């Protein structure tokens, strides 16, 4: 975690996506106009959130297998940062949606799925707050994390595809592929990777600070 190379990579990718996100060429689309560039910022928020949630899940599973508190710290910090990205993604989505779909909060299943997801992970932290004993807290929150994740996933991926949805790629709209040409993808994929790396960097800092606190308390 102390290595720097991936942090510099993340920083470079982020700067790249910001600069070329505005200077690069985009397809001209009705309704979307220039806001199509939001794709470089709004969507990576979701990908980062997912990546961080999966990391949190992995460490929860590891904790249940080995019982090391270290793993529980990893799991909880990844979850915390994923909530932040989720909130950011939600607000950027609201902003984008208001100017394209005409409503700050439309009744879209993907939106509802994310709102529920935020509730679930907030409940995770409330659960953690109600324990004093370290081991108990770690074990029970790990169980909840795994259970909640597995219930949450079908929500976010499957349900929107089954029902009507405003989002592209779900419920009758053609997938985003048709709107994003090659030039956009060249900026989009690096942006996603960059944000995931930055999110991981932030989480790693939080983890390291927590670990230092742990050692001080011993």
């Amino acid at each position, binding site marked *: 975690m102390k290595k720097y190379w991936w942090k510099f990579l993340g920083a470079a990718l982020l700067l790249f996506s910001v600069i070329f996100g505005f200077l690069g060429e985009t397809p001209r689309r009705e309704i979307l106009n220039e806001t199509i560039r939001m794709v470089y910022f709004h969507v990576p928020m979701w990908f980062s959130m997912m990546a961080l949630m999966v990391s949190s899940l992995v460490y929860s599973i590891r904790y*249940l297998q080995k019982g090391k508190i270290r793993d529980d710290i990893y799991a909880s910090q990844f979850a915390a940062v994923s909530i932040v990205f989720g909130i950011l993604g939600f607000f950027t989505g609201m902003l984008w949606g208001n100017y394209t779909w005409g409503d700050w909060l439309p009744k879209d299943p993907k939106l*509802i799925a994310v709102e*529920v997801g935020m509730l679930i992970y907030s*409940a995770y932290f409330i659960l953690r707050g109600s324990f004093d004993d370290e081991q108990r807290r770690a*074990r029970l929150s790990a169980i909840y994390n795994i*259970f909640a994740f597995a219930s*949450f996933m079908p*929500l976010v991926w499957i349900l929107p595809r089954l029902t009507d949805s405003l989002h592209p790629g779900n419920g009758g709209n053609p997938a985003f592929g048709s709107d994003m040409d090659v030039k956009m993808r060249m900026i989009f994929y690096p942006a996603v990777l960059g944000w995931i790396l930055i999110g991981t960097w932030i989480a790693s800092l939080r983890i390291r600070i927590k670990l230092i606190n742990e050692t001080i308390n011993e």
Partner: protein
Amino acid sequence: MKEIKSLIWKDIKLELRQQNTINTMVLFMVSTLFLCYISFMLRTNSLDSLTWNTLFWIILLFSAVNSAGNSFRKETSGRHLYYYQLAGPGAIIMAKIIFNFLLLLFLSLLGFGLYLALLGNHVSDYRIYLIALVLGSLGFSSSLTLLAGIASKTDNSSGVLAVLSLPILLPLINMLIKLSKNAMDGLAFSASYDEIMTIFGIDLIVIALSYLLFPYLWKS
């Protein structure tokens, strides 16, 4: 399998003798229904089918959350160790899930009957509505049993249970309301097929998860 059956049977016999949980739950359901009856009958026939349906499922949801909390509360820790030595944790969770399922099924059918009687009948297709009740009871009981197990280890178990379970149950409830709305409108079976399969899928996933995760819960 035998262990599961005997565990379920033990819970049923306990319930019939003490009637602890059942009485509380029935009373809760009846009082809430009566409250709705009084409030909504101020204007006659004022309940449109959407409100009727949603209200029913909300009442069911809260009854379910309450009843699930009870299933772990009445176990004292001494007995816990005894059970652990006799039957594996997998059997225990399956038995609890099935017991809760039966309890919820009973409650939902009772509630449904009362609802029809007090608040008018908006249902066209009973078959699908009953399927929704059965699948719903199964889904509620499977998620709630594991979550109740988690919550029972905390100090404020009923509060924590509510906080934990509501977000997770939201998608299930959403599907159930849609399905039962279809039943009320009398849509053909094919229209609801997707929903039924999805709900059933969710139920299975949750049951499998509970089965896998319970052993870890049991150790503490």
